[in-house]
C-alpha cells in the first residue's frame, strides 16, 4: 500500500495518468495533442534554462529543423514515420551542436543574443532555399503516415489515436529527459547553473558539458517539431520565427523552470489560452503579457511550485525541516 502511494506521488506517474484520462474529459482532442507537443518543446528548452542556466533564443530554429526535416523526408521520400522522427530529432541535434559550439563561447546575455542571431540566420536561409522548403509558401503535400513497423501498420488519422501516439512519444521523451537530469552528467549541468566558475575549477570542462546540454535539448525540440509537422500536415516559416522562441520562454517561466515538469503546465496553459482567447479577442497577447509579468514579478517558481506547495500541504508529511542558519 505504501509503495503504491509513493508511486502515485511521483509527478511522472501523475502526469502520465492525467494525460491518459485527459482527452476523454476534454472535448478538443486536437488541442490536447498540441498541448503535448508544445509541452515536449518547453521541457526540452528547460533542459537548458532550468538545468544548465543557459537562456536560448534559438529554439524555434531547432523546432523548425525538426518540422522541416520531417516534412521534406515525407514529401520527397515517403519515409517511415519512426525513421523520419529519429532523423528529424537527429538533424535538430546537429544544428544545436553547430549553434551551441559557437554560441557557448559567450556568457549570459551575449549567449542569448548569439542564439537569437542564429535563429534569424536560419530563418532567412530557409526562405532562400525555396525548392526544398517552399519558401514563404511553406511546405505543402505533407501527409500523416501510418505507423509502420515491419509487417504491422496502424493508421493514426483519427484524432484520438494520434493523441495517444503523441502521448507515447511524449512520455518516452519525458522519461529520457528525467534520466538525463538525474544522471551524473545531469548533476554537472546543475553545477554549471549554480556556479560555472567553480565547476571549471574542480575540473569540469564546462564548455563541453554545455554543448552536450544544448544537443540534448535540440534533439527533443526537434522531435517536438517533427510531431507538430505530422499533426498539422504543413510546415511554415513561422515555425522557425524567433517569436516562437520567445513563446517557449514564456511557457517555461509560467510553468516554473525549477523542475522538469513545470514547463509542461506552462505550455498547456499558453496553448489553451491561445486557442480560447485568440478566438474571442484579437489582442489576447496583451493579456498573456500581463499574466507573464505578474508571474515573473510575484510567482517566480511558476505554477509548478504552487502545485508543489499545495500538494505538500494536502499530504502533510512529518517534514524534517532545515532551519536556515
Amino acid at each position, binding site marked *: 500500500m505504501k509503495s503504491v502511494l509513493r508511486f502515485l506521488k511521483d509527478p511522472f506517474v501523475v502526469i502520465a495518468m492525467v494525460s491518459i484520462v485527459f482527452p476523454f474529459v476534454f472535448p478538443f482532442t486536437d488541442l490536447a495533442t498540441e498541448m503535448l507537443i508544445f509541452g515536449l518543446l518547453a521541457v526540452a528548452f528547460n533542459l537548458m534554462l532550468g538545468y544548465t542556466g543557459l537562456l536560448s533564443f534559438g529554439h524555434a530554429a531547432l523546432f523548425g529543423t525538426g518540422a522541416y526535416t520531417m516534412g521534406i523526408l515525407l514529401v520527397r521520400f515517403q519515409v517511415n514515420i519512426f525513421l523520419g522522427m529519429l532523423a528529424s530529432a537527429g538533424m535538430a541535434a546537429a544544428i544545436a551542436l553547430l549553434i551551441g559550439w559557437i554560441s557557448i563561447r559567450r556568457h549570459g546575455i551575449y549567449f542569448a543574443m548569439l542564439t537569437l542571431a542564429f535563429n534569424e540566420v536560419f530563418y532567412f536561409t530557409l526562405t532562400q532555399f525555396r525548392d526544398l522548403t517552399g519558401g514563404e509558401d511553406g511546405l505543402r503535400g505533407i501527409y500523416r503516415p501510418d505507423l509502420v513497423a515491419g509487417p504491422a501498420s496502424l493508421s493514426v488519422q483519427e484524432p484520438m489515436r494520434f493523441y495517444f501516439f503523441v502521448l507515447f512519444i511524449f512520455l518516452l521523451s519525458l522519461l529520457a529527459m528525467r*534520466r*538525463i537530469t*538525474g*544522471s*551524473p*552528467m*545531469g*548533476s*554537472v549541468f*546543475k*553545477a554549471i547553473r*549554480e*556556479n560555472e*566558475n*567553480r*565547476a*571549471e*575549477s*574542480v*575540473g*569540469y*570542462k*564546462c564548455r563541453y558539458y554545455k554543448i*552536450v546540454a544544448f544537443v*540534448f535539448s535540440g534533439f527533443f525540440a526537434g522531435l517536438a517539431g517533427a510531431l507538430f509537422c505530422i499533426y498539422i500536415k504543413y510546415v511554415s516559416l513561422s515555425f522557425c520565427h524567433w517569436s516562437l522562441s520567445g513563446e517557449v520562454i514564456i511557457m517555461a517561466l509560467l510553468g516554473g523552470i525549477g523542475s522538469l515538469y513545470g514547463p509542461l503546465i506552462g505550455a498547456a496553459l499558453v496553448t489553451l489560452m491561445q486557442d480560447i482567447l485568440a478566438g474571442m479577442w484579437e489582442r489576447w497577447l496583451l493579456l498573456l503579457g500581463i499574466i507573464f509579468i505578474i508571474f515573473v514579478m510575484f510567482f517566480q517558481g511558476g505554477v509548478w511550485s504552487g502545485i508543489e506547495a499545495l500538494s505538500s500541504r494536502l499530504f502533510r508529511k512529518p517534514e524534517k525541516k*532545515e532551519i*536556515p*542558519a
Partner: protein
Amino acid sequence: MALLKTTKLLKYFGSLACVYYVDLEFEEGRIYSIIGPNGAGKTSLLNLISGHLAPSSGEITFRDRKIDGLESSQVSQLGIGRSFQLNNLFPALSVFENVRLAVQSRHPGRYNFFSNIGAYREVNEKADAIVDKIGLSPSSAKQAQYLSHGDKRLLEIGIALATDPALLLMDEPTSGMAPEETVMMLGFIRKLALEHTIIFIEHKMNIVMSISDQVIVMNQGRVIATGTPAAVQADPEVRRAYLGGID
C-alpha cells in the same frame, strides 16, 4: 625536484604589473604562506598557478610539466586544488552534493547521462568521507547557501580536497572567521599538510608564523623575501615594506 616552479613569471593588467618576474620553487610536503599588503599580487599569483589567469610571460611547471596557459579545469585535473577567498560554492545544492560533484570530476562516470546519480557507490562514499572530514556531516543535506560563514569556509576547502589535489592552493582560508573558528581552522590546515603540499595566502600573522615552513613576502608584484618565518621576520626590507606598517 620541486613540485611546482615558476620562472620569470610576469602578469600585466594594462600597464600595471601585478606579478613581476616571480621565480619560486615549492617542495613537496611543506606548507608555504604568501603574505603581503593589499594589491601585492598574492591572489593574482595563485590565479596564474591555478589557470584562472594566463601569464603575460614566464613559465610555470608542475611536476616538470609546463602548465601555464592551461585552463583551470585542466590544471585541476593535474592535481592542483584551489579554494577561494570569497566563498565560491554551489549555493542551491546540498553540502553533500557540493562535495560529490568535486569527487565526481575525477570519475569516468561523469560522462554518464543515463544512470542514476547513485550508481557510483565509490563516489558517494568518498564524498561522505570528505563531508565527515570537514566536520559537516550533521549539515550534509543542508543547502550550501544556508550554512554559517565558518561552515561555508570549511565547505570551500572540502570541495578543493575532494579533487585529491597533490598541491592545495588556499586563498585566505580564515577570512571573516571568528578567533575560535580560526584556531580550529589552523589545526585543520596542519592536518591537511600531512597529505597535501599547501600554499596559502593569509593576513593573520600569528597563523602564518606558527604553521608555515616557508614564508613568501610579496609587495607590488615582486617577491621581496622568502625564508623561514623567523628569517622573514628579521629581514629589514620586509619590516620596512610590510611588517613595519603594522607594528
